């Protein structure tokens, strides 16, 4: 095993890690805001990939061009999720909340399988193709671009939450819903905004992944599992923690696959989750 192979694994781990981080950030934002874990997060990712795919296949829009449309569609999807489902279970027990989002995930995935069949699809000849070589390491152009966009989206999300008035209102609602309401922050609208932004993040990730990943109805499952792990690792509700956690997961996945056995990639990541929740349940990094 040469140094170059290890370097290659580190680079590809970093690139996928950034995507995991953005997906996890959406989950974490929603969790931190209203203490609800979106078990349908993977299915939302799948929907965003299909939306990007159909925009390409039916209207001929390249996934790169259709990113804003996908993000808007996902934000709309988030608002709908809030107003049609989440709004009614805000005050329910945690058990019911878990069951409700779990039900949503079953529903979306089965509906997608019914409408679009479980076939694997890919986008032919996207604008971004091919790979570049640097220092003996090959990097796929779409992967590189996706990671850069995810990182940018991450920075924007962070600035939004910490610097803008709406972002501060979101934080206030997350900290104390009732106190925020007394100060005139409508919590219901904040929740809807949280869902829109959370799923918007997923839309960015899904739209970028459409360039190089297979698009199929179960695609979201593993990404959602990794997002759960990342959120636990970064500390539930912490956005910047998700960035580090996503990168750690990407690295563990690719290095573990290289050094031990690639067929157990998932297990290494799961093992991290178990270790973290047992020994450091508050996560490795602080809040926001």
């Amino acid at each position: 095993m040469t140094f170059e192979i290890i370097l290659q694994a580190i680079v590809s781990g970093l690139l996928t890690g950034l995507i995991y981080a953005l997906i996890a950030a959406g989950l974490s934002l929603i969790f931190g805001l209203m203490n609800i874990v979106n078990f349908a997060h993977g299915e939302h990712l799948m929907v965003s990939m299909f939306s990007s795919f159909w925009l390409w296949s039916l209207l001929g829009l390249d996934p790169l061009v259709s990113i804003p449309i996908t993000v808007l569609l996902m934000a709309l999807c988030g608002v709908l999720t809030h107003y049609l489902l989440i709004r009614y279970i805000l005050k329910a027990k945690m058990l019911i909340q878990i069951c409700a989002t779990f039900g949503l995930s079953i529903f979306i995935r089965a509906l997608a399988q019914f409408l679009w069949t479980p076939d694997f699809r890919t986008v032919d000849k996207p604008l971004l193709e091919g790979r570049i070589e640097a220092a003996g390491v090959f990097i796929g152009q779409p992967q590189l671009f996706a990671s850069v966009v995810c990182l940018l989206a991450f920075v924007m999300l962070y600035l939004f939450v910490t610097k803008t008035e709406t972002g501060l209102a979101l934080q206030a609602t997350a900290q104390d819903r009732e106190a925020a309401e007394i100060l005139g922050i409508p919590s219901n609208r904040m929740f809807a905004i949280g869902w829109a932004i959370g799923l918007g993040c997923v839309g960015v990730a899904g739209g970028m992944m459409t360039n190089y990943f297979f698009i199929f109805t179960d695609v979201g499952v593993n990404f959602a599992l990794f997002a759960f792990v990342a959120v636990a690792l970064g500390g539930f509700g912490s956005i910047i923690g998700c960035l580090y956690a996503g990168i750690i997961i990407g690295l563990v996945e690719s290095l573990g696959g290289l050094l031990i056995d690639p067929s157990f990639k998932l297990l290494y990541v799961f093992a991290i989750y178990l270790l973290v929740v047992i020994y450091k349940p508050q996560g490795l990094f602080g809040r926001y």
Partner: protein
Amino acid sequence: MENTLNTARLEPVWHTNRRIMLLLAALALFLVIFPLFGPNSFYLHLMIMIFMYAVMAQSWNVIAGLSGQISLGHGLFFGIGAYTSSFLFVEYGVTPWIGIFIGMFFSAVIAVLIGIPMLRLSGHYFAIATLLIGISFQLVFQRWEWVGAASGLWIPLTEESSWLALQFHDSKVPYYYVFLAFFIISYFFVWRLSLSKIGFRLRAVRDDYQAASSLGIDVSKYKIIAYAISAIVMAPMGSLFAQYILIVDPDRMFNLEISILVLLMTVLGGIGNIWGPLIGVAILIPISEYSRIYLGGTGGAVDLIFYGLILMLICIFRPAGLISLFPKHILERKKQR
């Protein structure tokens, strides 16, 4: 508001009044003599599936309804039960009757091992951990050569139907009675459990763990007990199902759908209530089996669309399940005079 409907208000449902007892006796009698009417094998299969899922859903109800912890990977114990009894029979010729109990033991041990670190955590962590552990077990069994890896274990057929090997080749009736027996035993066991000291302590932990803990109840210990009991109830169904279809493979036995179905059935019928799982199963299993007939194998996703929708609607409108639609005076124990 419907959403805030507290299941505590329905608590007396765990108790039972005389009218319910008569109804149950009649139902049990009907179930015992049902094969005498000579139903065709489809109806026998339907009933067997109902018994099996009723027990599996009840097992989930013990951990979720009684102790308030959500397990999203409960199919794990089904798989452990199936693999233990089948492996012992295939490799060492141990009769499944003994294998069932060894499977129960292994399941309980695994439940305790998972429970000790995980059940100290809050609900979300536990739910996600069970999901991940369930998938991990499937991954490991898919690649574990010793237990047949992805192709699984084929249970060798005996020459003739045999009670000792728990294989019946020409009729489903013996299977029917075996499943019925386990169904009745499991329900009776959970019913007694819910009325026992452990049952009351578990509910105290579920409803207010701080209050329970201040009264001297060891919260994590009781959660682990509930998880182990739930595993013990689940495991025999895996063993029996393996005997019923005579093949054990990781995709079937550790299927995530098992974990989804037990959750769905219990929530639909009424979580935390002993009859809830049975009501959910009696509604969903016929729908699923009939849709398999009329829509064919490829229609598999159609019933899942329906399941997901039901689960959301129940959570929004009837978080206490369909059993909360029954008039209360039927369900509650008569007031002591």
